[in-house]
């Protein structure tokens, strides 16, 4: 098949370009979408089908040290869900933490062509890049964990803000990351150094650094905006999962002022009630703030019933969850950089808390006034596998289905929410926004999430069906960078995919300041720390945002 394609007669959903279900032809040449039909183009007849840009997952956990520990931990999860190879594709294992090959192929079988790994330790960047290289089809990048970085906190403590900025930029460059990630800022030191304690209040000052979580959040928001990274700090707030945590979440968003900030898996941070007691829904308080603050974006982190795997840099949280069933648990401390916890988990309809979490996620989606900033995620695999996205889409698009599903859950928990009263149904265009156009915009991926000329030819073609779960479960065609990957539901090719990263400018003098700390407190050589270009495979530098 030639490198030129013409997709004809399909119904196009391209919200970024204001196209909402028009029959239009799409032309592809040399991996990009073009205006005019190339001469030698091969046609795909998309009559009765819906055409969308390839999906973009803004927050998932698919590669790197913690993901691989979670893979190794759960043979029982893989065993029930093998992923056979084909003559063109590698085999693998599924479950909530699939092998790298299965991850890439399965994303593509849902019509997703880009995914961002949301939490990587700097020292684990090389490992993550190796895994991403083995994650086929999709383009991918990762967010580097800097919110509990001891060196950076020391700079903040000493008020050295310009060096802090240089060091953040140096770290993003040295790890080939896309942006910065904060997880439970300030929580690592009490966990590792104070017999498994945690920080509870956003204004609680650390005895070591004198910094509160708010000080750290503010410094990162300001710095990353100054650096103009393509995506603002990606923030996992303090107090994840605790009753009453919505106040911390509101305070975190307020700390950003009018600067860009992204709140990760906001559902897990939208609980009312009193700490230690049963939670209530604070979805309304949270979504009202998001609705009225265009500088804030978030992904929902929807909970889906069934098997999940908790994997997080928020080690105290994982230990807390481990306490419920006393099952197997991984804790992994990374020197000077991060903590990590892993717990196999499952969400069950009859459990009060789990139903409440499920309903709060749906409330947030259904009360969102700006789909461009309230994006679809399950915090895969924390809230559930990315393989449950089609079902989640149906829950949003199909109120009848939602009512049927509501009958199966814990009714007392449902009573605490407004879900029964929410009549909204998402349109196909809104789905295209929360799964493609929106995340691409929030990530500044200018060539993704739309079908205008010059865009990457990452395209998904679905048979239009009444059952939206079935529809989004199995696109008939998936085209990645202009190449047919799935053709009539069959894999017909393989593709490696690109690494997406950013390269903010920095003053190289910062290395002389980092190095002495490194020699004292790290266990590898400073010269061997920064990741070299040999790990990039195919890659693209995503330009930042010009700021004042």
């Amino acid at each position, binding site marked *: 098949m030639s490198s030129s394609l013409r997709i004809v007669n399909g119904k196009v959903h391209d919200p970024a370009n204001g196209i909402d279900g028009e029959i239009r032809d799409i032309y592809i040449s040399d991996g990009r979408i073009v205006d005019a039909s190339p001469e030698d183009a091969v046609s795909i007849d998309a009559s009765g089908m819906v055409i969308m840009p390839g999906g973009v997952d803004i927050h998932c956990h698919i590669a790197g040290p913690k993901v691989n520990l979670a893979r190794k931990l759960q043979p029982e999860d*893989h065993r029930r869900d093998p992923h056979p190879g084909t003559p*063109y*594709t590698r085999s693998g294992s599924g479950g909530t933490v699939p092998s*790298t090959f299965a991850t890439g192929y399965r994303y593509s079988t849902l019509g997703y062509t880009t995914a961002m790994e949301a939490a990587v330790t700097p020292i684990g960047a090389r*490992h993550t890049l190796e895994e991403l290289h083995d994650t086929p089809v999709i383009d991918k990048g990762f967010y580097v964990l800097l919110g509990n970085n001891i060196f950076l906190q020391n700079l903040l403590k000493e008020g050295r803000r310009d060096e802090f900025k240089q060091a953040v930029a140096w770290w993003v460059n040295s790890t080939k990351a896309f942006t910065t990630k904060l997880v439970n800022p300030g929580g690592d030191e009490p966990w590792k150094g104070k017999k498994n304690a945690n920080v509870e209040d956003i204004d609680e000052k650390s005895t070591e650094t004198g910094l509160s979580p708010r000080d750290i959040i503010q410094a990162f928001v300001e710095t990353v905006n100054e650096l103009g990274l393509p995506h603002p700090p990606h923030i996992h707030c303090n107090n994840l999962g605790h009753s009453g945590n919505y106040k911390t979440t509101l305070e975190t968003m307020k700390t950003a002022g009018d600067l860009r900030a992204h709140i990760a898996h906001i559902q897990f941070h939208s609980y009312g009630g009193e700490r230690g007691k049963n939670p209530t829904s604070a979805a309304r308080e949270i979504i009202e703030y998001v609705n009225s603050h265009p500088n804030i974006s978030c992904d929902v982190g929807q909970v889906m019933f069934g098997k999940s795997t908790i994997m997080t840099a928020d080690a105290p949280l994982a230990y807390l969850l481990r306490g419920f069933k006393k099952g197997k648990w991984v804790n992994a401390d990374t020197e000077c950089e991060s903590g990590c916890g892993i717990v196999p988990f499952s969400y069950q309809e009859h459990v009060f808390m789990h139903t409440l979490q499920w309903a709060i996620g749906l409330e947030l989606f259904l009360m969102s006034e700006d789909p461009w900033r309230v994006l679809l995620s399950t915090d895969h695999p924390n809230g559930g596998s990315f393989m449950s996205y089609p079902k989640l889409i149906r829950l949003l698009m199909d109120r009848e289905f939602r009512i049927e599903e509501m009958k199966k859950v814990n009714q007392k928990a449902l009573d605490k929410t407004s879900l029964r009263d929410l009549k909204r149904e998402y349109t196909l265009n809104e789905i295209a926004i929360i799964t493609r156009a929106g995340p691409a915009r929030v990530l500044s991926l200018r060539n993704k999430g739309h079908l205008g000329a010059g865009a990457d030819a990452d395209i998904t073609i679905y048979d239009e069906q009444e059952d939206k779960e079935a529809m989004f479960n199995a696109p008939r065609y998936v085209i990645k960078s202009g190449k047919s990957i799935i053709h009539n539901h069959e894999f017909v090719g393989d593709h490696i995919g690109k690494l997406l990263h950013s390269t903010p400018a920095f003053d190289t003098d910062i290395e002389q300041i980092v190095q002495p700390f490194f020699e004292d407190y790290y266990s590898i050589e400073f010269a061997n720390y920064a990741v070299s270009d040999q790990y990039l495979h195919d890659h693209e530098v995503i330009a930042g945002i010009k700021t004042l």
Partner: protein
Amino acid sequence: MSETAKENIKIVKHATCTFCGCVCDDMELTVDMDAHKITKAKNACVLGRAWFAEHVIEDRPAAMVDGKEVSIEEAVEEAAQTLVKARFPITYGLSDTTCEAQRQAVAITDIIHGTVDTTTSVCHGPSGLAFQGVGESTMTLGEVKNRADFIIYWGGNPAEAHPRHFTRYSVTPKGMFTPNGKKDRTVVLVDVRKTSTAPVADIVIRVKPGKDFELLWALRALVKGKKVADNIEAITGVSMDTLTDLVERMKNCRYGVFFFGMGLTMTRGRHFNSGALLALATDLNEFTHFVAKPVRGHGNVTGADNVVSWQTGYPFGVNFNLGYPRFNPGEFTTVDTLSRGDADAALIIASDPASNFPKAAIEHLHKIPVITLDTKETHTSKLAHVAFTTATYGINTGGTVYRMDDVPITLRPAFDSPFPTDEEILTAIRKRAHELMLAKSGLGAAGGGGTQKVAAPRKE
């Protein structure tokens, strides 16, 4: 000595020693480029010095079939044909090569529907099984240096197997919260004999051979405040006073660490021993921060675990007969596939099972076509049908290795080798095996990445 100045000398700083799982990356190598030899390895331990000094360019053919020198291309063809023809081919070894080569080896096994296993299965394989059962509270080695005030070595002898472990990571270094180094730490050794590690320890506990599980389980009980049988000393060789003292110290430390060796995994109890230790470390987190880490042997055995896991979902002992990965230790692990006589061809990379496997396994290796990749002649390469001589990782090749704590490090080669790398040979075998498998299934010699139509559209 006056000639020294004329010699073609190169200094390689921040080089990495891949002899053991410590993977020290602070080597400063002096390389005689004319003699193709490392003449000095500053910072290396006794094992590292031997590793760097002895890896010279061997006087051997790059490729042999049945003991006769052939071209590399011919040997690759013979290797691919042998593997594709086999009904139960096994891939084994992999702990002394780069992750880049390991990725190719797993790919070959996937393509030929074989079985891949690494030296992990006869090293900390049982700890891998225990990990699957109970999890693990663990850390990178820098955390030990910065924080640990209480360290227990159990069933391992780093003084001889990992000589720089104490000075670089665990006992003597001064860290962030351990400014006085060893003075800020208490070190305990548990072993069946008084090894050369004993002088480093403040407390030496001698357990009766094969009674590690009983001792660990008694400690778990005491940590949880439960009663332990009065005859515990008769069973384990360790007195109740010693046990209660140890438990108090473990519960009251600030950051406790277990390092455990093959004294647990290779003896009676195997994965139950490792599991008991990991569970004990987990239990202790109710009182303080406690972590555990298996002390790994080979330079990139940890990389092998990682690569096999991310590509298949399982750490070792993985079979692709059905076209997807299945994991079953005891069925798909190499000692078993060889001793039972299942394997009908073997691809052995950087390992010498013919020297250190049980007798029955070695006997079977003599009966089947074996393909070896190694830097030197070994017992296994001597019996091989196809034998490749390859460049030494970290000395002649770049690439990635993982330290015992999963920290990845990039290698800095010292001098070129005339021999190809493991990665190059394995990539060539993979490509050829893929072509042969496609031909076998009637799809012709198409490579991956094509967009050719292979199936009729499916009607729904």
